[in-house]
């Protein structure tokens, strides 16, 4: 299992992006932090001066969720969708769409939580309607967070910098 803190991003198919991250906590707590508004508001997209000003969750199959963030310059970004599957504390499937969407169609996000020895491996796979939509998402300049040491890509680039 990878160590906690390392975020891995892969493209399992031409319409998907998958993220894997290990957390040093049992999965029922991760599930809680993902589904309770007062907790979610404290971590999802709230960095670089952004805060979550709306966080509504109707946690049942067919229920809706809605998030709105406000940036340091006062601009707002909203998104929402519907819960398709809820299996506490291991799996959530939702649709997702941004208000001012810069990519076509609705995406489907699948969150899977697997616990080993008190640690939880989180995998979030988002499937877009097309490769073009996925690529648009990955290329978008989202707000800048704190860039921590990442992965082999960064390592290779660092050694390229030394060689240059």
């Amino acid at each position: 299992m990878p160590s906690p803190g390392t975020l891995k991003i892969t493209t399992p198919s031409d319409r998907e992006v998958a993220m894997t991250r290990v957390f040093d906590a049992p999965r029922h707590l991760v599930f809680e932090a993902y589904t309770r508004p007062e907790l979610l508001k404290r971590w999802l997209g709230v960095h670089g001066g952004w805060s979550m000003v709306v966080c509504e969750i109707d946690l049942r199959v067919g229920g809706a969720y809605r998030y709105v963030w406000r940036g340091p310059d006062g601009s707002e970004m909203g998104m929402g969708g519907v819960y398709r599957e809820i299996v506490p504390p291991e799996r959530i499937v939702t649709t997702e769409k941004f208000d001012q969407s810069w990519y076509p169609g609705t995406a489907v996000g699948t969150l899977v939580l697997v616990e080993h020895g008190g640690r939880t491996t989180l995998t979030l796979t988002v499937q877009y309607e097309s490769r073009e939509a996925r690529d648009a998402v990955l290329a978008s300049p989202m707000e800048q967070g704190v860039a921590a040491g990442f992965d082999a890509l960064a390592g290779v680039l660092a050694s390229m910098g030394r060689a240059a």
Partner: protein
Amino acid sequence: MELTSYGPRSDGSLDATFAALADPTRRAILARLAAGEASVTELAEPFAMSQPAISKHLKVLERAGLVSRGRDAQRRPRRLEARPLALATEWLDGYRRHWEGSFQHLDAVLGELKARESRRGRRKP
């Protein structure tokens, strides 16, 4: 870096880049080539692998455009092609930062939840 050149792409080259980077040996080969060009023999040295095995990895890297062959016909040195790597990194950067920032905050929230739970004597809700 030409930012204009990495917008929505549908040629699949980024997929080839990511597939090539998915293997630790191939990443190590790239790191070695970052220090300068090298022959297959030189590349095979630090790894407990045969030259054919290294050649196989090199083929994947070449197909992804990450490695090219030098002009010396005898040594056939391989060298790093930095551009696809830089494009892939640039492409993922915004997405990665968004989620890294979020997950760092989630770490803190989970730390608090764990502490709260242990205070309650590890009862689950």
